[in-house]
């Protein structure tokens, strides 16, 4: 909102502070001046204001001047329109009949009739101030209503009286009733819309926008000035229903001043009559008593000094907010205070401050105008316990492990497309749709983190960043409109090659890099035996986002805790990923059911470990898991460990001759297995080692292995 400093000063005759000082003081009291612009000699400054939505009373010059008066302890010039008596004049015959048929939606309606007016451009102060505010002038009638809104914040409306047929009726719109509003749009009204009507038709969408037909035109001679108070909720609903947010609706829906209509009407009339014409009869003022009681007549509330101190605490000067300051500040804002015992005031509330309803509202006003900067900085004592959510330590472990392995952390959108939701939802048909999606690509709540991960991978590859190693920990959603379930998940995305340098060759990432990450995470949990199963046979089919032969599911404690592998070529192509991409999802909700692994130190053997290598050839069908089980199943007490050291398969590109030269029959691979023996209590004898080796060779031969010479 734009405000002129000189206009403010016109209400503050005693103000000596400069414009910048005034702006600073207002800002510190929550009437924020966001920008100050010099308007040239004699014109003061233009303040760009940001008024919080609860302070409709300060969305005008007089309201801001009232704040300044309270801050500086200055008198505020009273508002009066000379020659216009407030309220109904019983003697004069009402110039027009007003029928209140919707007293629940309209709390007050005033009508004043002006005859023989001259519609012409505005002059004088209106014109000058509009120019400084860069507000487009329209005509003296329209400008007058806008000017009064800027001055005192109360929206009014001027009708061409000659287009009004019979009495003014405040009523709900009829089913299907139409109204062409001032913006030229013909609108179908809702039976809950309040309209200002005459006996035949709707004239205006009350409090939101006037009607086309009764619009002031250059030839308008007679004018009806409306100044009213409408129910905030009704205005808000109509405004939303018709997508019409206007200066008037903005103010009415936040609660206008119930007592303002007669004065607003007088100011508008005064301005319009500057160009000629006269008032006919008195002001018609229809007041709905219930609305008056809810607003201007609402009951006094109690303010207790000890409550002020209990909430606000210590001030910089060490004395706390004193009782006298409280009284002075509230009075300056328009409250009426009466002593009610030694520690309390009974406070009447100003009609323009419908946001003040409770004692705490008054306490806020005291703190605000007293100045937040004058309160001390204190620290509360505390005697509670500090607790963390149960999964926090686990999540920190997962994150730490991945970061240490070189995976960078990412955050992606919580939404995905319906197509992606269908591909990635762990259970079909459980993805949740958005009611008002940000875009078509964000129509669903993500059922998995993988759509986001693939988007980020594509993002990198498209920008020629070919080495990508990302993880994201986030929430996935499933369910139905009745209930949405959330689960924590981890996504992994990998493509390109590992760090290379002058001392290390470039090495392309492969399946085992993503598997390594999964192992690293699982190692941090007391998972018991963990199985990496290919998708085939009993394990079921691979999800469509995984290459059926180059992917695995991970089972720990009887549950699938992760799926990962290579993105199938078709999926990669569709996403324009031009190189091999490995992705995985870890179901953290399941993983978090396991406790973190707690290391227990074991006695280190003082005796030397003996290492033996076993070189074997196996048929391709024999997997490492079987080999491991065969060796492990021997239950050799002194077996300290074993691991595959070298594997030679020949590779796809390798020619049969090369394989043969390596002594490898087709459909076979060779493997070098390193085994270590160690006893905690003694040096192992040669015969023992001999016998261990023989049993290992026998066990490996039993599963189809052939020892190489």
């Amino acid at each position, binding site marked *: 909102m734009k405000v002129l400093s000189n206009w403010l000063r016109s209400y503050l005759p005693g103000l000596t502070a400069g414009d910048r000082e005034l702006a600073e003081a207002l800002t510190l009291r929550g009437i924020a001046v966001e920008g100050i612009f010099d308007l040239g000699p004699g014109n003061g400054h233009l303040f760009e204001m940001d008024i919080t939505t609860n302070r409709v009373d300060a969305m005008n010059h007089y309201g801001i001047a009232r704040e300044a008066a309270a801050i500086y302890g200055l008198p505020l010039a009273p508002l009066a329109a000379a020659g216009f008596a407030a309220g109904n004049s019983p003697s004069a015959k009402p110039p027009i009949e007003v029928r209140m048929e919707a007293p629940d939606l309209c709390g007050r309606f005033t009508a004043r009739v002006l005859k023989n007016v001259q519609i012409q451009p505005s002059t004088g102060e209106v014109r000058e101030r509009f120019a400084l505010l860069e507000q487009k002038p329209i005509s003296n009638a329209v400008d007058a209503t806008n000017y009064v809104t800027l001055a005192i914040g109360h929206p009014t409306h001027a009708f061409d009286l000659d287009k009004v047929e019979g009495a003014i009726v405040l009523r709900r719109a009829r089913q299907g009733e139409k109204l062409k509003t001032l913006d030229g749009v013909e609108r179908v009204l809702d039976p809950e819309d309040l309209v200002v009507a005459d006996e035949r038709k709707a004239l205006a969408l009350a409090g939101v926008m006037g009607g086309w037909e009764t619009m002031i035109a250059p030839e308008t001679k007679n004018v009806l000035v409306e100044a009213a108070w409408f129910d905030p909720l009704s205005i808000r609903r109509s405004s939303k229903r018709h997508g019409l947010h206007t200066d008037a609706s903005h103010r009415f829906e936040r609660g206008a001043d119930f007592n303002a209509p007669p004065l607003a009407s007088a100011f508008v009339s005064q301005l319009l009559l500057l160009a000629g014409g006269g008032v006919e009869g008195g002001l018609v003022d229809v007041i709905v008593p219930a609305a008056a009681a809810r607003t201007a007549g609402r009951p006094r509330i109690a303010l207790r000094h000890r409550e002020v101190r209990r909430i606000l*605490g210590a001030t910089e000067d060490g004395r706390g907010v004193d009782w006298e300051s409280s009284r002075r500040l509230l009075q300056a804002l328009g409250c009426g205070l009466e002593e009610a015992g030694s520690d309390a005031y009974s406070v009447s509330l100003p009609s323009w401050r419908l946001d003040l309803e409770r004692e705490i509202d008054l306490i806020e006003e005291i703190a605000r105008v007293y100045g937040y900067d004058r*309160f001390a900085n204190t620290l509360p004592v505390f005697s509670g316990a500090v607790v963390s959510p149960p999964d926090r330590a686990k999540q920190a472990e997962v994150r730490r492990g991945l970061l240490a392995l070189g995976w960078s952390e990412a955050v992606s959108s*919580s939404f995905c497309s319906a197509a992606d939701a269908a591909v990635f939802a762990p259970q079909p048909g459980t993805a949740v749709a958005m009611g008002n999606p940000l875009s078509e690509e964000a129509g669903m709540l993500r059922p998995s983190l993988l759509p986001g991960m693939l988007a980020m991978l594509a993002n990198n590859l498209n920008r020629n960043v070919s080495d990508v190693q990302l993880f994201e920990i986030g929430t996935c959603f499933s369910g139905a409109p009745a209930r949405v379930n959330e689960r924590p998940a981890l996504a992994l995305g990998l493509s390109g090659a590992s760090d290379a340098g002058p001392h290390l060759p470039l090495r392309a990432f492969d399946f085992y890099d993503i598997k390594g990450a999964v192992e690293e995470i699982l190692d941090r949990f007391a998972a018991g035996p963990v199985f990496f199963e290919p998708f085939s046979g009993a394990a079921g089919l691979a999800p469509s986002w995984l290459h059926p032969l180059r992917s695995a599911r991970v089972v720990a404690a009887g549950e699938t805790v992760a799926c990962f592998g290579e993105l199938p070529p078709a999926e990669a192509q569709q996403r324009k990923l031009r190189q091999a991409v490995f992705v995985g999802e870890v179901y953290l909700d399941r993983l978090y059911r396991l406790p973190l692994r707690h290391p227990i130190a074991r006695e280190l053997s003082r005796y030397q470990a003996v290492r033996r290598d076993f070189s074997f050839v196996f048929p391709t069908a024999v997997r490492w898991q079987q080999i491991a089980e065969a060796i492990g199943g021997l239950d050799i007490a002194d077996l300290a460990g074993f691991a595959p050291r070298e594997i030679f398969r020949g590779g796809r590109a390798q020619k049969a001759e090369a394989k043969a030269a390596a002594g490898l029959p087709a459909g076979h691979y060779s493997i070098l297995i390193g085994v270590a023996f160690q006893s905690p209590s003694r040096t192992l004898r040669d015969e023992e080692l001999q016998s261990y080796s023989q049993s290992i060779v026998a066990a490996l031969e039993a599963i189809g292995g052939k020892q190489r010479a």
Partner: protein
Amino acid sequence: MQIPLLADWSEASLAQAFAALTAEADSAPPPRTEEERENFRLHWLGRKQGRLKLVSEAWLKSAPNEAKRELGKRFNLLKEHILARLEDLPAGGLEPAAASFAAAGEAAIDVTLPGTRKRPGAEHPLIKTMNEIVAVFEAMGYSIGIGPEVETDYYNFESLNFPPNHPARDTQDTLVIAGQETKPLRERLLMRTHTSPVQMRTMERQPPPVRIVIPGKVHRNDAADATHSPIFHQVEGLCVDDNITFSDLKGTLDHAMKALFGSSVKTRFFPSFFPFTEPSADVQISCIFCGGAGCKKCKQSGWIELLGCGMVDPAVFAFAAREQPAYDPSRISGFAFGMGVERIAMMKYGITDIGQFYSGDMRFLEQFL
């Protein structure tokens, strides 16, 4: 150099021969480095090819018995002379052996080449910032609270004193879940627009005192631009006890901002409006780049707006008291605060486009290693 044969074993001839050897030893320049000294030692005293060894072989072995005594005496004098020369070090001692790069050949390495390292992954600047903020409040006795990202209207709005149809709801454009129209308003599901619902959920579970800090992801139906995103992160906090005041709120946040941004940072509190707090405040900190003098980052104001806060509105306590009667606003009081993590991270790391946070761009992320 060959050892000359002696003409005879006379004393004169011996004296002349040993004088020549002494002169030879003295003619070598005094050693300046360890290397030179070692060379000198090997030249004279080396076990196999040292000059003294050769002298001993050439003269001592073949000398007649009557000459051996005189020869031995002179030999020992020469040896002492050589040893003395070895001890005769220049002032300041010898320089260590200068390993010539070229001379050392293959044994030498180029220490200026980059080292081999397994690079760790980069923490996401948002998560890092969020963790830092949370840690500050944990150190002040705050527990961590978390809650669902899909919330009901009740927890996101109504119980936080956003009544149905209230204009305050306009400030938080909401993304809603499909298919909610048939439900009562308060049960309708939406993406939480702030992490404040966790405050209510916490109070419903736990009587005062409460101190929680709530990090999390939130969503609003806002158009994306360089500084706005429909997805963002917040850290909120709540402190409730029987004696919490507005000055405690000020002191707590002043302390937290100093812990986060340095002890010289100052805070400034402005009245503001949030439906769930009263009095409400916006907090600015003195610009961390210019110290308050005014610069581009703070738009010459010297201040940066960072968070919103206030005393918990009694209406909010009244909602909590439905489940936990101990939240009686006449007996307890408290404050709440909230800040946007993106804004703080952007400021801290000089990030100008909020969209980079959600891009997964390795070039962006690797800057935070």
